């Protein structure tokens, strides 16, 4: 499994790829593998606000529902509408499949997130992977 070095990560298995004042958010390769076949994604609408550490939607596999937690606070600038009909794209490539684009309220929040190395260490400690 891979974790792009330019992304930042949360302990809830989301990633954020920052580009200036916006960031694309997705879930990690580890998350999609644990979930199994993803069949449903529930995302907010453009214009909604999101708050760091709070839920903004959910992703469902056949077996389970998992809440999605926002890595940062901000406003939803774009939503990946393709996931409505093709949620399984996340399984195919979790690292390039974005769920939301967020206009960051405070870019400094990203610094508090895990680096790729810290995230990998976190997973191996949590589960023995």
């Amino acid at each position: 499994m891979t974790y792009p070095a330019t992304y930042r990560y949360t302990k809830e298995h989301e990633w954020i790829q920052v580009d200036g004042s916006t960031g694309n958010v997705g879930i990690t390769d580890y998350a999609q593998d644990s979930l199994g076949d993803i069949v449903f994604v529930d995302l907010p609408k453009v214009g909604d606000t999101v708050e760091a550490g709070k839920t903004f939607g959910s992703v469902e596999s056949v077996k389970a529902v998992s809440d999605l937690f926002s890595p940062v606070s901000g406003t939803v600038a774009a939503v990946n509408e393709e996931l409505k009909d093709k949620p399984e794209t996340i399984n195919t490539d979790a690292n390039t499949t974005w769920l939301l684009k967020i206009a960051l309220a405070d870019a400094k929040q990203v610094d508090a997130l895990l680096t790729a190395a810290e995230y990998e260490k976190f997973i191996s400690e949590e589960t023995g992977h």
Partner: protein
Amino acid sequence: MLLEAIPLSELQAPLRKTALNAVHRAAKSKMVDFGGWDMPVDCCGLVAEHMAVRTGVGVFDVSHMGDIQFRGPGSLAAVQKLCMNDASKLAVGQAHYSAMLYPNGTFVDDVVVHKLSENDYLIVINAGTREKDVQWVRQVIGGMPRVHMSDYSDHYTQLAIQGPRAAETLRKLTSTDLSTIKNYWFTWGQVCGLHNVMIARTGYTGEDGFEIYIPSDEATSARVWGEVLAAGAEFGILACGLGARNTLRLEAGMALYGHEISDAINVFEAGLGRYAKLDKGDFVGRDALMEIQAAGGPKRKLVGLEMVERGIGRDGYPVFSLDGKRLGKITSGSPAPFLKKNIAMAYVPVEFGALDTEVAVEIRGQRVKARVVALPFYKRTRKST
């Protein structure tokens, strides 16, 4: 998102293991605690496993299930008292679906009863209720004459080979003519060089298939598992876990103990009255069932639901009428990989049970429309060969 940690290391309270546990772990199956057993939930991907069973063949390790045998001239009387279906109608080599009930007509467990010979019956029971069932059986038949009960649960590795190509797969491993075994009948034969293996045309998937009962030592179990996978390779066989086992039986409208049936649900509510032979004579729970009938039948019933609006109704989600009255809750609900719909079973008051009745499932605070559909959701069309 929060994910359940599924640690690969031993848990503090050791889980029970089937003889194939090391094989499942070596194959990197995702493991789960099912009723105290360390079982594979996902071997190759739930959807792939489900589709393999519907279109080709899949193999399941169901050794965690229990096996209780009754022997002696009093064994039929014992089975008749314990179980609601009429075992006197079974021929040698025949099995049927049945259930053990409490005196109030609710379920101890659902079972499959096999008539091995005139004085010899085998009942196969659920893994999650094994200890409870054995205690119950001892309690009910303890004083009955000329019957001996044996718990053979740990003696067998039980494999379920299921799917339209299951017969072709098993045919390669046995000299027994499988075409002579009708649905819900069984025989004994040589399988993978083992003698006197029980081969039953039973299963929990809604497909044609067989369950074989082999000795439970690890070496034999691993060898046979490997030979089944090799035999089924040309048909796309996959090792299947409990995840697919659940979605398959849900599509087929089959009950799962603790969900559609339990000690709080009676036979008529569950829609299983056709398996309760009230005319056969007395059995535990019969009086209660007759009272329920006399009082006009059950007040709630199990229905099938299909989500109409976007959303997945899952186990435990509440169900409301469209004008907001709480009707009940979903007993089992999930996306259906073959039917490509989101389906569920739920208990609702009988007046809301008519086909096409629209209801609302509450999914994380939102009411999402579903409608009542006929059970089973899926019925296979091919005939057994």
